[in-house]
Protein backbone atom coordinates (compact mmCIF):
# COMPACT_ATOMS: atom_id res chain seq x y z
CA UNK A 1 0.00 0.00 0.00
CA UNK A 2 1.20 3.51 -0.82
CA UNK A 3 0.64 6.46 1.46
CA UNK A 4 -0.05 9.99 0.24
CA UNK A 5 -0.89 13.28 1.91
CA UNK A 6 -4.06 15.35 1.83
CA UNK A 7 -2.51 18.80 1.57
CA UNK A 8 -3.56 21.06 4.42
CA UNK A 9 -4.98 24.37 3.24
CA UNK A 10 -2.51 27.22 3.40
CA UNK A 11 0.85 26.72 1.78
CA UNK A 12 0.06 23.58 -0.18
CA UNK A 13 3.10 23.93 -2.43
CA UNK A 14 5.52 23.84 0.49
CA UNK A 15 3.67 20.92 2.05
CA UNK A 16 3.77 19.03 -1.26
CA UNK A 17 7.50 19.65 -1.57
CA UNK A 18 8.02 18.24 1.92
CA UNK A 19 5.83 15.23 1.17
CA UNK A 20 7.92 14.51 -1.89
CA UNK A 21 11.14 14.71 0.12
CA UNK A 22 9.68 12.10 2.45
CA UNK A 23 8.94 9.79 -0.45
CA UNK A 24 5.15 9.88 -0.35
CA UNK A 25 3.53 8.70 -3.55
CA UNK A 26 1.11 11.59 -4.00
CA UNK A 27 -0.56 14.69 -2.64
CA UNK A 28 -4.26 15.50 -2.80
CA UNK A 29 -5.20 19.07 -3.69
CA UNK A 30 -8.69 19.75 -2.41
CA UNK A 31 -9.07 23.53 -2.81
CA UNK A 32 -11.12 25.74 -0.57
CA UNK A 33 -13.00 27.88 -3.10
CA UNK A 34 -14.51 27.17 -6.53
CA UNK A 35 -11.78 26.79 -9.12
CA UNK A 36 -9.01 27.03 -6.54
CA UNK A 37 -8.15 23.34 -6.88
CA UNK A 38 -6.65 23.76 -10.32
CA UNK A 39 -4.62 26.86 -9.50
CA UNK A 40 -3.27 25.33 -6.29
CA UNK A 41 -2.31 22.24 -8.26
CA UNK A 42 -0.58 24.60 -10.68
CA UNK A 43 1.45 26.02 -7.80
CA UNK A 44 2.34 22.52 -6.62
CA UNK A 45 3.52 21.27 -10.02
CA UNK A 46 6.73 23.33 -10.41
CA UNK A 47 7.99 22.70 -6.87
CA UNK A 48 7.66 18.92 -7.13
CA UNK A 49 9.03 16.45 -9.63
CA UNK A 50 7.88 12.99 -8.63
CA UNK A 51 4.75 12.96 -6.48
CA UNK A 52 1.44 12.29 -8.14
CA UNK A 53 -0.81 15.33 -8.00
CA UNK A 54 -4.26 14.11 -7.04
CA UNK A 55 -6.63 16.83 -8.13
CA UNK A 56 -10.10 17.05 -6.64
CA UNK A 57 -12.43 17.93 -9.50
CA UNK A 58 -15.89 18.96 -8.28
CA UNK A 59 -18.31 17.78 -10.96
CA UNK A 60 -20.97 20.33 -11.76
CA UNK A 61 -18.72 23.27 -10.90
CA UNK A 62 -18.02 23.97 -14.58
CA UNK A 63 -18.62 22.56 -18.05
CA UNK A 64 -16.98 19.11 -18.03
CA UNK A 65 -14.94 20.09 -21.08
CA UNK A 66 -13.51 23.08 -19.23
CA UNK A 67 -12.63 20.82 -16.30
CA UNK A 68 -10.98 18.37 -18.72
CA UNK A 69 -8.95 21.18 -20.28
CA UNK A 70 -7.64 22.14 -16.86
CA UNK A 71 -6.76 18.54 -16.07
CA UNK A 72 -4.94 18.12 -19.35
CA UNK A 73 -2.96 21.34 -18.98
CA UNK A 74 -1.92 20.34 -15.47
CA UNK A 75 -1.00 16.86 -16.63
CA UNK A 76 1.36 18.30 -19.23
CA UNK A 77 2.70 20.98 -16.89
CA UNK A 78 3.51 18.32 -14.29
CA UNK A 79 5.08 15.86 -16.70
CA UNK A 80 2.13 13.44 -16.56
CA UNK A 81 1.52 13.23 -12.80
CA UNK A 82 -2.17 14.06 -12.44
CA UNK A 83 -4.79 11.77 -10.93
CA UNK A 84 -8.36 13.07 -11.10
CA UNK A 85 -10.35 12.63 -7.90
CA UNK A 86 -13.80 13.39 -9.26
CA UNK A 87 -16.10 14.65 -6.53
CA UNK A 88 -19.79 14.18 -7.26
CA UNK A 89 -20.37 17.23 -5.03
CA UNK A 90 -23.96 18.44 -5.38
CA UNK A 91 -24.84 16.16 -8.30
CA UNK A 92 -26.95 13.05 -7.99
CA UNK A 93 -25.58 9.84 -9.46
CA UNK A 94 -27.36 10.23 -12.79
CA UNK A 95 -26.01 13.73 -13.36
CA UNK A 96 -22.55 12.83 -12.11
CA UNK A 97 -22.33 9.88 -14.50
CA UNK A 98 -23.07 12.17 -17.44
CA UNK A 99 -20.57 14.84 -16.39
CA UNK A 100 -17.95 12.21 -15.74
CA UNK A 101 -18.50 10.53 -19.08
CA UNK A 102 -18.09 13.81 -20.97
CA UNK A 103 -15.03 14.73 -18.92
CA UNK A 104 -13.38 11.38 -19.63
CA UNK A 105 -14.23 11.49 -23.33
CA UNK A 106 -12.77 14.99 -23.46
CA UNK A 107 -9.49 13.55 -22.14
CA UNK A 108 -9.41 10.82 -24.78
CA UNK A 109 -7.89 12.82 -27.69
CA UNK A 110 -10.76 11.52 -29.80
CA UNK A 111 -13.22 13.76 -31.64
CA UNK A 112 -16.13 13.93 -29.23
CA UNK A 113 -19.85 14.32 -29.70
CA UNK A 114 -22.09 14.14 -26.65
CA UNK A 115 -25.82 14.59 -26.38
CA UNK A 116 -27.21 14.09 -22.90
CA UNK A 117 -29.69 15.43 -20.40
CA UNK A 118 -27.26 18.04 -19.07
CA UNK A 119 -24.85 18.74 -21.91
CA UNK A 120 -24.71 18.83 -25.67
CA UNK A 121 -21.17 18.98 -27.08
CA UNK A 122 -20.73 20.66 -29.48
CA UNK A 123 -23.87 22.64 -28.77
CA UNK A 124 -24.90 23.13 -32.43
CA UNK A 125 -25.59 26.81 -31.79
CA UNK A 126 -23.61 28.13 -34.74
CA UNK A 127 -23.41 27.20 -38.43
CA UNK A 128 -20.33 25.56 -39.87
CA UNK A 129 -19.11 24.12 -36.56
CA UNK A 130 -18.01 20.48 -36.86
CA UNK A 131 -20.28 17.80 -35.39
CA UNK A 132 -17.42 16.57 -33.21
CA UNK A 133 -14.60 18.44 -31.52
CA UNK A 134 -11.31 17.25 -30.11
CA UNK A 135 -10.37 18.73 -26.76
CA UNK A 136 -6.73 19.80 -26.75
CA UNK A 137 -4.02 19.54 -25.60
CA UNK A 138 -4.21 15.81 -25.05
CA UNK A 139 -3.05 14.66 -21.60
CA UNK A 140 0.57 13.59 -21.22
CA UNK A 141 -0.37 10.23 -19.74
CA UNK A 142 -1.70 7.35 -21.81
CA UNK A 143 -4.86 7.70 -19.73
CA UNK A 144 -5.41 10.00 -16.76
CA UNK A 145 -6.47 7.89 -13.75
CA UNK A 146 -9.88 8.86 -12.40
CA UNK A 147 -11.00 8.05 -8.85
CA UNK A 148 -14.36 8.89 -7.34
CA UNK A 149 -15.42 10.57 -4.15
CA UNK A 150 -18.43 12.45 -2.84
CA UNK A 151 -21.92 11.49 -1.73
CA UNK A 152 -22.81 9.75 -4.98
CA UNK A 153 -19.26 8.49 -5.50
CA UNK A 154 -19.91 4.86 -4.57
CA UNK A 155 -22.97 4.68 -6.77
CA UNK A 156 -21.13 6.22 -9.73
CA UNK A 157 -18.19 3.87 -9.13
CA UNK A 158 -20.50 0.89 -9.29
CA UNK A 159 -21.86 2.10 -12.62
CA UNK A 160 -18.56 3.06 -14.18
CA UNK A 161 -16.11 0.57 -12.70
CA UNK A 162 -13.84 3.38 -11.54
CA UNK A 163 -12.06 3.25 -8.16
CA UNK A 164 -13.95 4.78 -5.24
CA UNK A 165 -12.06 6.48 -2.42
CA UNK A 166 -13.09 4.54 0.69
CA UNK A 167 -13.68 6.43 3.92
CA UNK A 168 -13.00 3.41 6.17
CA UNK A 169 -11.33 0.00 5.84
CA UNK A 170 -14.67 -1.81 5.84
CA UNK A 171 -15.55 -0.10 2.53
CA UNK A 172 -12.44 -1.42 0.78
CA UNK A 173 -12.53 -4.15 -1.81
CA UNK A 174 -9.41 -6.27 -2.12
CA UNK A 175 -10.74 -7.59 -5.42
CA UNK A 176 -10.21 -4.26 -7.16
CA UNK A 177 -6.82 -3.53 -8.69
CA UNK A 178 -6.91 0.03 -7.38
CA UNK A 179 -8.56 0.70 -4.03
CA UNK A 180 -7.82 4.15 -2.62
CA UNK A 181 -8.82 5.32 0.82
CA UNK A 182 -8.65 8.50 2.87
CA UNK A 183 -8.29 8.90 6.62
CA UNK A 184 -6.91 11.10 9.37
CA UNK A 185 -3.87 10.07 11.38
CA UNK A 186 -3.63 10.53 15.13
CA UNK A 187 0.07 11.35 15.23
CA UNK A 188 0.70 8.53 17.71
CA UNK A 189 2.98 5.83 16.39
CA UNK A 190 1.38 2.72 17.84
CA UNK A 191 -2.16 3.78 17.04
CA UNK A 192 -1.33 4.91 13.52
CA UNK A 193 0.71 1.77 12.85
CA UNK A 194 -2.26 -0.40 13.75
CA UNK A 195 -4.51 1.90 11.77
CA UNK A 196 -2.61 1.74 8.47
CA UNK A 197 -2.13 -1.99 8.86
CA UNK A 198 -5.92 -2.34 9.08
CA UNK A 199 -6.27 -0.38 5.84
CA UNK A 200 -3.63 -2.53 4.15
CA UNK A 201 -5.25 -5.73 5.38
CA UNK A 202 -8.59 -4.54 4.02
CA UNK A 203 -7.09 -4.28 0.55
CA UNK A 204 -6.37 -0.57 0.20
CA UNK A 205 -3.72 0.15 -2.44
CA UNK A 206 -3.39 3.90 -1.83
CA UNK A 207 -4.10 5.65 1.47
CA UNK A 208 -4.37 9.42 1.63
CA UNK A 209 -3.81 10.73 5.12
CA UNK A 210 -4.90 14.00 6.67
CA UNK A 211 -2.73 15.66 9.27
CA UNK A 212 -3.97 15.40 12.84
CA UNK A 213 -4.96 18.74 14.33
CA UNK A 214 -2.19 20.59 16.10
CA UNK A 215 0.66 18.44 14.79
CA UNK A 216 3.62 19.79 12.81
CA UNK A 217 3.64 18.56 9.21
CA UNK A 218 7.32 17.64 9.39
CA UNK A 219 6.70 15.42 12.41
CA UNK A 220 3.80 13.62 10.76
CA UNK A 221 5.66 13.17 7.47
CA UNK A 222 8.58 11.74 9.45
CA UNK A 223 6.20 9.32 11.11
CA UNK A 224 4.84 8.25 7.74
CA UNK A 225 8.14 7.86 5.94
CA UNK A 226 10.07 6.18 8.71
CA UNK A 227 7.43 3.96 10.29
CA UNK A 228 4.09 3.79 8.51
CA UNK A 229 5.08 3.43 4.86
CA UNK A 230 7.70 0.72 5.59
CA UNK A 231 5.13 -1.08 7.74
CA UNK A 232 2.69 -1.45 4.85
CA UNK A 233 5.29 -2.00 2.12
CA UNK A 234 5.79 -5.67 2.99
CA UNK A 235 4.15 -8.23 5.22
CA UNK A 236 5.94 -8.59 8.58
CA UNK A 237 8.19 -5.55 8.20
CA UNK A 238 11.27 -6.02 10.43
CA UNK A 239 10.79 -3.04 12.74
CA UNK A 240 14.41 -3.04 13.87
CA UNK A 241 15.20 -1.20 10.63
CA UNK A 242 12.92 1.74 11.43
CA UNK A 243 13.67 1.76 15.12
CA UNK A 244 17.46 1.67 14.87
CA UNK A 245 19.52 4.85 14.96
CA UNK A 246 19.46 6.61 11.58
CA UNK A 247 22.72 6.65 9.63
CA UNK A 248 25.07 9.55 10.25
CA UNK A 249 24.00 12.58 8.20
CA UNK A 250 27.59 13.58 7.34
CA UNK A 251 27.98 14.86 3.81
CA UNK A 252 31.25 15.44 2.03
CA UNK A 253 32.50 18.90 2.93
CA UNK A 254 29.61 19.73 5.27
CA UNK A 255 30.22 19.74 9.01
CA UNK A 256 27.28 18.38 11.01
CA UNK A 257 28.36 19.25 14.55
Amino acid at each position, binding site marked *: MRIGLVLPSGDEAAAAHRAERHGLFGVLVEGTS*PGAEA*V*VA*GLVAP*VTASVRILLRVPLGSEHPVTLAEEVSVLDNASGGRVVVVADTADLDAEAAVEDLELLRRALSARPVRHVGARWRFP*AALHPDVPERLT*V*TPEPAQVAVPVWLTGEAGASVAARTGLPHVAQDPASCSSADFVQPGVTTLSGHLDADRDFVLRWAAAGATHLLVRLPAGQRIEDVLGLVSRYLQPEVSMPSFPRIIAESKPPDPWRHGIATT
Partner: protein
Amino acid sequence: MRFGVGLWCLQGTATSPRHHIQAYRELREDALLVEELGYESVWLSEHHFFYDGYCPALLPTAATVLGATTRLRVGTGMLLLPLQRADRVATAAVELAERSGGRLDLGTGLGYRDTEFDGKGVPRSERVARHRAGLDAVATTAARSPLEVWVGSATPAGIARAGARGLGVLLSGANPLSLVEELAVASRQGWVQAGRPGGRRPAVAALRNVWVTDDPAERRSVLDWFRASYVLYAGLGWSVAATGDTPAMDFRRQADEAIQSAVDTAIIGSPDTVIQGLRDVAAAGVDYVIFRVLLEGVDRRALHDVLRRLAADVMPALRDVVPPDEPAIERAPVPDRGTA
Protein backbone atom coordinates in the same frame (compact mmCIF):
# COMPACT_ATOMS: atom_id res chain seq x y z
CA MET B 1 7.69 52.73 -19.91
CA ARG B 2 7.05 49.25 -18.54
CA PHE B 3 8.09 46.01 -20.26
CA GLY B 4 6.73 42.50 -20.47
CA VAL B 5 7.06 39.57 -22.87
CA GLY B 6 4.49 37.43 -24.67
CA LEU B 7 2.63 35.54 -25.83
CA TRP B 8 3.18 32.02 -24.59
CA CYS B 9 0.56 29.79 -26.27
CA LEU B 10 2.07 26.37 -25.37
CA GLN B 11 1.57 24.92 -28.83
CA GLY B 12 3.19 22.10 -30.73
CA THR B 13 2.51 23.08 -34.32
CA ALA B 14 2.69 21.53 -37.76
CA THR B 15 5.83 23.48 -38.59
CA SER B 16 7.37 23.63 -35.11
CA PRO B 17 6.39 20.34 -33.46
CA ARG B 18 7.14 19.60 -29.80
CA HIS B 19 5.64 17.60 -26.95
CA HIS B 20 3.38 19.60 -24.68
CA ILE B 21 5.36 18.56 -21.62
CA GLN B 22 8.28 20.33 -23.28
CA ALA B 23 6.15 23.39 -24.02
CA TYR B 24 5.16 23.83 -20.38
CA ARG B 25 8.72 23.14 -19.18
CA GLU B 26 10.11 25.73 -21.61
CA LEU B 27 7.56 28.25 -20.40
CA ARG B 28 8.89 27.94 -16.85
CA GLU B 29 12.52 28.10 -18.05
CA ASP B 30 11.77 31.16 -20.18
CA ALA B 31 9.95 32.83 -17.30
CA LEU B 32 12.94 32.39 -15.01
CA LEU B 33 15.17 34.04 -17.60
CA VAL B 34 12.68 36.86 -18.16
CA GLU B 35 12.55 37.44 -14.41
CA GLU B 36 16.34 37.42 -14.12
CA LEU B 37 16.63 39.97 -16.94
CA GLY B 38 14.40 42.44 -15.15
CA TYR B 39 11.21 42.36 -17.19
CA GLU B 40 7.98 42.99 -15.32
CA SER B 41 5.81 40.24 -16.74
CA VAL B 42 5.07 37.35 -19.06
CA TRP B 43 1.72 36.99 -20.82
CA LEU B 44 -0.19 33.87 -21.86
CA SER B 45 -2.84 33.34 -24.53
CA GLU B 46 -5.93 31.12 -24.78
CA HIS B 47 -7.75 29.18 -27.48
CA HIS B 48 -9.75 25.98 -27.53
CA PHE B 49 -10.13 22.85 -29.65
CA PHE B 50 -7.20 23.72 -31.91
CA TYR B 51 -5.02 20.96 -33.31
CA ASP B 52 -1.78 22.32 -31.81
CA GLY B 53 -2.89 22.18 -28.18
CA TYR B 54 -3.06 25.97 -27.88
CA CYS B 55 -3.41 26.56 -24.14
CA PRO B 56 -7.09 26.40 -23.09
CA ALA B 57 -6.67 26.93 -19.32
CA LEU B 58 -4.73 30.05 -18.40
CA LEU B 59 -5.12 30.25 -14.64
CA PRO B 60 -3.62 26.81 -13.91
CA THR B 61 -0.86 27.64 -16.40
CA ALA B 62 -0.22 31.00 -14.76
CA ALA B 63 0.00 29.19 -11.44
CA THR B 64 2.79 26.97 -12.73
CA VAL B 65 4.81 30.08 -13.61
CA LEU B 66 3.99 31.96 -10.41
CA GLY B 67 4.98 28.89 -8.43
CA ALA B 68 8.36 28.80 -10.15
CA THR B 69 9.19 32.53 -9.87
CA THR B 70 9.37 35.08 -7.08
CA ARG B 71 9.08 38.57 -8.61
CA LEU B 72 7.73 38.18 -12.12
CA ARG B 73 4.11 39.05 -12.85
CA VAL B 74 2.03 36.71 -15.03
CA GLY B 75 -0.74 38.00 -17.26
CA THR B 76 -3.52 36.31 -19.16
CA GLY B 77 -3.74 37.93 -22.54
CA MET B 78 -6.55 37.15 -22.86
CA LEU B 79 -8.65 34.80 -20.75
CA LEU B 80 -11.88 34.38 -22.69
CA LEU B 81 -14.31 35.24 -19.93
CA PRO B 82 -17.60 34.55 -21.76
CA LEU B 83 -16.57 30.90 -22.17
CA GLN B 84 -16.32 30.21 -18.45
CA ARG B 85 -18.30 30.67 -15.26
CA ALA B 86 -17.20 34.12 -14.25
CA ASP B 87 -17.74 33.60 -10.52
CA ARG B 88 -15.43 30.58 -10.61
CA VAL B 89 -12.83 32.49 -12.64
CA ALA B 90 -13.04 35.29 -10.10
CA THR B 91 -12.52 33.14 -7.03
CA ALA B 92 -9.69 31.20 -8.66
CA ALA B 93 -7.97 34.38 -9.85
CA VAL B 94 -8.27 36.05 -6.45
CA GLU B 95 -6.92 32.93 -4.78
CA LEU B 96 -3.96 32.88 -7.15
CA ALA B 97 -3.31 36.61 -6.80
CA GLU B 98 -3.29 36.37 -3.03
CA ARG B 99 -1.06 33.30 -2.96
CA SER B 100 1.45 34.85 -5.37
CA GLY B 101 1.89 38.15 -3.61
CA GLY B 102 -0.37 39.99 -6.04
CA ARG B 103 1.57 38.96 -9.15
CA LEU B 104 -1.40 37.95 -11.34
CA ASP B 105 -2.72 40.20 -14.11
CA LEU B 106 -6.13 38.88 -15.16
CA GLY B 107 -6.59 40.01 -18.74
CA THR B 108 -10.04 39.22 -20.09
CA GLY B 109 -11.37 39.17 -23.64
CA LEU B 110 -14.46 38.25 -25.61
CA GLY B 111 -13.29 35.45 -27.88
CA TYR B 112 -14.31 35.26 -31.49
CA ARG B 113 -14.30 31.67 -32.78
CA ASP B 114 -17.74 30.13 -33.29
CA THR B 115 -16.23 26.71 -32.63
CA GLU B 116 -15.09 27.74 -29.16
CA PHE B 117 -18.45 29.21 -28.23
CA ASP B 118 -20.20 26.12 -29.55
CA GLY B 119 -17.92 23.83 -27.59
CA LYS B 120 -18.77 25.64 -24.39
CA GLY B 121 -22.48 25.84 -25.16
CA VAL B 122 -22.50 29.64 -25.27
CA PRO B 123 -24.16 31.59 -28.10
CA ARG B 124 -21.54 33.92 -29.58
CA SER B 125 -24.21 36.63 -29.67
CA GLU B 126 -24.12 36.73 -25.88
CA ARG B 127 -20.40 37.32 -25.58
CA VAL B 128 -20.50 41.06 -24.86
CA ALA B 129 -23.22 40.71 -22.23
CA ARG B 130 -21.45 37.77 -20.63
CA HIS B 131 -18.15 39.64 -20.61
CA ARG B 132 -19.75 42.65 -18.92
CA ALA B 133 -21.48 40.48 -16.34
CA GLY B 134 -18.26 38.57 -15.86
CA LEU B 135 -16.30 41.74 -15.19
CA ASP B 136 -18.94 42.71 -12.63
CA ALA B 137 -18.51 39.35 -10.90
CA VAL B 138 -14.73 39.69 -10.95
CA ALA B 139 -14.92 43.23 -9.58
CA THR B 140 -17.12 42.10 -6.72
CA THR B 141 -14.93 39.16 -5.77
CA ALA B 142 -11.66 41.00 -6.34
CA ALA B 143 -12.53 44.01 -4.19
CA ARG B 144 -9.83 44.39 -1.55
CA SER B 145 -7.71 41.71 -3.26
CA PRO B 146 -4.39 42.36 -5.02
CA LEU B 147 -5.78 41.09 -8.36
CA GLU B 148 -5.13 43.40 -11.33
CA VAL B 149 -7.80 43.18 -14.03
CA TRP B 150 -7.27 44.10 -17.68
CA VAL B 151 -9.43 44.07 -20.78
CA GLY B 152 -8.53 43.26 -24.36
CA SER B 153 -10.47 44.68 -27.28
CA ALA B 154 -9.82 46.03 -30.76
CA THR B 155 -12.69 48.51 -30.86
CA PRO B 156 -12.80 52.02 -29.38
CA ALA B 157 -16.16 51.26 -27.76
CA GLY B 158 -14.87 48.20 -25.96
CA ILE B 159 -11.71 49.98 -24.87
CA ALA B 160 -13.70 53.00 -23.67
CA ARG B 161 -15.92 50.73 -21.57
CA ALA B 162 -12.82 49.28 -19.92
CA GLY B 163 -11.56 52.80 -19.26
CA ALA B 164 -14.91 53.67 -17.72
CA ARG B 165 -14.39 50.84 -15.27
CA GLY B 166 -10.90 52.11 -14.49
CA LEU B 167 -9.37 48.96 -16.00
CA GLY B 168 -6.16 48.78 -17.98
CA VAL B 169 -6.27 47.56 -21.56
CA LEU B 170 -4.00 45.29 -23.59
CA LEU B 171 -3.92 45.93 -27.33
CA SER B 172 -3.11 43.43 -30.07
CA GLY B 173 0.31 43.31 -31.69
CA ALA B 174 -1.37 43.25 -35.08
CA ASN B 175 -2.86 46.70 -34.57
CA PRO B 176 -1.15 49.38 -36.67
CA LEU B 177 0.08 52.35 -34.65
CA SER B 178 -2.79 54.49 -35.92
CA LEU B 179 -5.27 52.11 -34.31
CA VAL B 180 -3.17 51.86 -31.15
CA GLU B 181 -3.36 55.63 -30.81
CA GLU B 182 -7.11 55.64 -31.41
CA LEU B 183 -7.64 52.95 -28.80
CA ALA B 184 -5.36 54.68 -26.28
CA VAL B 185 -7.44 57.81 -26.70
CA ALA B 186 -10.61 55.76 -26.24
CA SER B 187 -9.25 54.37 -22.97
CA ARG B 188 -8.52 57.85 -21.66
CA GLN B 189 -11.86 59.20 -22.86
CA GLY B 190 -13.79 56.37 -21.27
CA TRP B 191 -11.99 56.92 -18.00
CA VAL B 192 -12.43 60.69 -17.99
CA GLN B 193 -16.07 60.56 -19.05
CA ALA B 194 -16.79 58.10 -16.22
CA GLY B 195 -15.40 60.52 -13.66
CA ARG B 196 -11.87 59.10 -13.44
CA PRO B 197 -12.74 55.96 -11.40
CA GLY B 198 -9.96 54.87 -9.10
CA GLY B 199 -8.31 58.28 -9.34
CA ARG B 200 -5.43 56.98 -11.43
CA ARG B 201 -5.48 56.71 -15.21
CA PRO B 202 -5.63 53.03 -16.20
CA ALA B 203 -2.61 51.76 -18.08
CA VAL B 204 -2.55 51.16 -21.81
CA ALA B 205 -0.49 48.09 -22.63
CA ALA B 206 0.26 46.97 -26.17
CA LEU B 207 1.81 43.91 -27.68
CA ARG B 208 4.40 45.02 -30.21
CA ASN B 209 6.33 42.95 -32.71
CA VAL B 210 9.92 43.89 -31.88
CA TRP B 211 13.34 42.41 -32.61
CA VAL B 212 16.85 43.76 -32.08
CA THR B 213 19.35 42.79 -34.74
CA ASP B 214 21.96 44.38 -36.98
CA ASP B 215 22.25 41.24 -39.09
CA PRO B 216 20.38 41.36 -42.44
CA ALA B 217 20.06 37.56 -42.52
CA GLU B 218 18.57 37.47 -39.03
CA ARG B 219 16.23 40.29 -40.03
CA ARG B 220 14.96 38.22 -42.96
CA SER B 221 14.38 35.26 -40.68
CA VAL B 222 12.63 37.38 -38.09
CA LEU B 223 10.26 38.79 -40.69
CA ASP B 224 9.47 35.25 -41.75
CA TRP B 225 8.87 34.21 -38.12
CA PHE B 226 6.40 37.09 -37.79
CA ARG B 227 4.72 35.99 -41.04
CA ALA B 228 4.49 32.38 -39.85
CA SER B 229 3.07 33.53 -36.52
CA TYR B 230 0.25 35.39 -38.17
CA VAL B 231 -0.57 32.43 -40.45
CA LEU B 232 -1.95 30.97 -37.22
CA TYR B 233 -4.58 33.70 -37.16
CA ALA B 234 -5.63 32.76 -40.67
CA GLY B 235 -6.21 29.27 -39.30
CA LEU B 236 -8.11 30.62 -36.32
CA GLY B 237 -10.16 32.93 -38.53
CA TRP B 238 -9.49 36.17 -36.67
CA SER B 239 -10.64 39.49 -38.05
CA VAL B 240 -10.54 43.10 -36.87
CA ALA B 241 -13.24 45.47 -38.07
CA ALA B 242 -12.34 48.73 -39.78
CA THR B 243 -12.23 51.65 -37.39
CA GLY B 244 -11.39 55.32 -37.84
CA ASP B 245 -8.57 55.61 -40.35
CA THR B 246 -7.59 51.96 -39.97
CA PRO B 247 -8.83 49.47 -42.58
CA ALA B 248 -10.23 46.08 -41.64
CA MET B 249 -7.83 43.20 -41.07
CA ASP B 250 -9.49 39.93 -42.03
CA PHE B 251 -7.24 36.89 -41.55
CA ARG B 252 -10.00 34.59 -42.76
CA ARG B 253 -10.97 36.08 -46.12
CA GLN B 254 -7.93 38.22 -46.97
CA ALA B 255 -5.22 36.25 -45.25
CA ASP B 256 -2.19 37.43 -47.23
CA GLU B 257 -3.14 41.07 -46.91
CA ALA B 258 -3.88 40.78 -43.19
CA ILE B 259 -0.68 38.87 -42.50
CA GLN B 260 1.39 41.46 -44.34
CA SER B 261 -0.37 44.27 -42.50
CA ALA B 262 0.47 42.65 -39.15
CA VAL B 263 4.09 42.01 -40.17
CA ASP B 264 4.37 45.65 -41.20
CA THR B 265 3.89 46.68 -37.57
CA ALA B 266 7.22 45.07 -36.65
CA ILE B 267 10.06 47.19 -35.30
CA ILE B 268 13.26 45.41 -36.31
CA GLY B 269 16.76 46.81 -36.30
CA SER B 270 19.59 48.17 -34.19
CA PRO B 271 18.99 49.15 -30.57
CA ASP B 272 18.68 52.80 -31.68
CA THR B 273 16.08 51.88 -34.29
CA VAL B 274 14.07 49.88 -31.78
CA ILE B 275 14.34 52.63 -29.16
CA GLN B 276 13.01 55.18 -31.63
CA GLY B 277 10.23 52.84 -32.68
CA LEU B 278 9.19 52.36 -29.08
CA ARG B 279 9.28 56.11 -28.46
CA ASP B 280 6.70 56.34 -31.25
CA VAL B 281 4.65 53.68 -29.49
CA ALA B 282 4.81 55.67 -26.25
CA ALA B 283 3.81 58.81 -28.14
CA ALA B 284 0.73 56.93 -29.33
CA GLY B 285 -0.33 56.63 -25.70
CA VAL B 286 1.16 53.31 -24.61
CA ASP B 287 2.51 52.95 -21.06
CA TYR B 288 3.47 49.31 -21.13
CA VAL B 289 4.95 47.35 -24.05
CA ILE B 290 4.68 43.59 -24.21
CA PHE B 291 7.38 42.41 -26.61
CA ARG B 292 5.78 39.87 -28.92
CA VAL B 293 8.82 37.68 -29.50
CA LEU B 294 7.37 34.16 -29.07
CA LEU B 295 7.25 33.49 -32.78
CA GLU B 296 6.49 30.49 -34.92
CA GLY B 297 9.78 28.91 -35.90
CA VAL B 298 11.96 31.01 -33.62
CA ASP B 299 15.09 29.29 -32.41
CA ARG B 300 15.11 29.30 -28.60
CA ARG B 301 18.69 30.53 -28.47
CA ALA B 302 17.65 33.42 -30.70
CA LEU B 303 14.69 34.09 -28.42
CA HIS B 304 16.86 34.18 -25.33
CA ASP B 305 19.44 36.32 -27.11
CA VAL B 306 16.89 38.92 -28.15
CA LEU B 307 15.44 38.99 -24.64
CA ARG B 308 18.94 39.76 -23.34
CA ARG B 309 19.53 42.43 -25.98
CA LEU B 310 16.22 44.14 -25.33
CA ALA B 311 16.93 44.12 -21.59
CA ALA B 312 20.48 45.41 -21.95
CA ASP B 313 20.37 47.72 -24.97
CA VAL B 314 16.79 48.99 -25.23
CA MET B 315 14.87 48.99 -21.97
CA PRO B 316 17.30 51.17 -19.97
CA ALA B 317 16.93 53.98 -22.52
CA LEU B 318 13.16 53.97 -22.20
CA ARG B 319 12.59 53.52 -18.48
CA ASP B 320 11.70 57.19 -17.98
CA VAL B 321 9.63 57.56 -21.15
CA VAL B 322 5.95 58.22 -20.45
CA PRO B 323 3.09 58.77 -22.87
CA PRO B 324 1.90 62.35 -23.32
CA ASP B 325 -0.67 63.46 -20.75
CA GLU B 326 -4.15 62.75 -22.02
CA PRO B 327 -3.41 63.10 -25.75
CA ALA B 328 -6.27 64.24 -27.96
CA ILE B 329 -8.68 63.95 -25.08
CA GLU B 330 -10.86 66.66 -26.64
CA ARG B 331 -11.83 64.36 -29.50
CA ALA B 332 -15.49 63.53 -29.94
CA PRO B 333 -16.89 61.02 -27.45
CA VAL B 334 -16.52 57.39 -28.48
CA PRO B 335 -19.85 55.96 -29.70
CA ASP B 336 -20.88 52.66 -28.20
CA ARG B 337 -21.14 50.36 -31.21
CA GLY B 338 -22.15 47.49 -28.98
CA THR B 339 -19.54 45.17 -30.34
CA ALA B 340 -16.85 44.64 -27.75
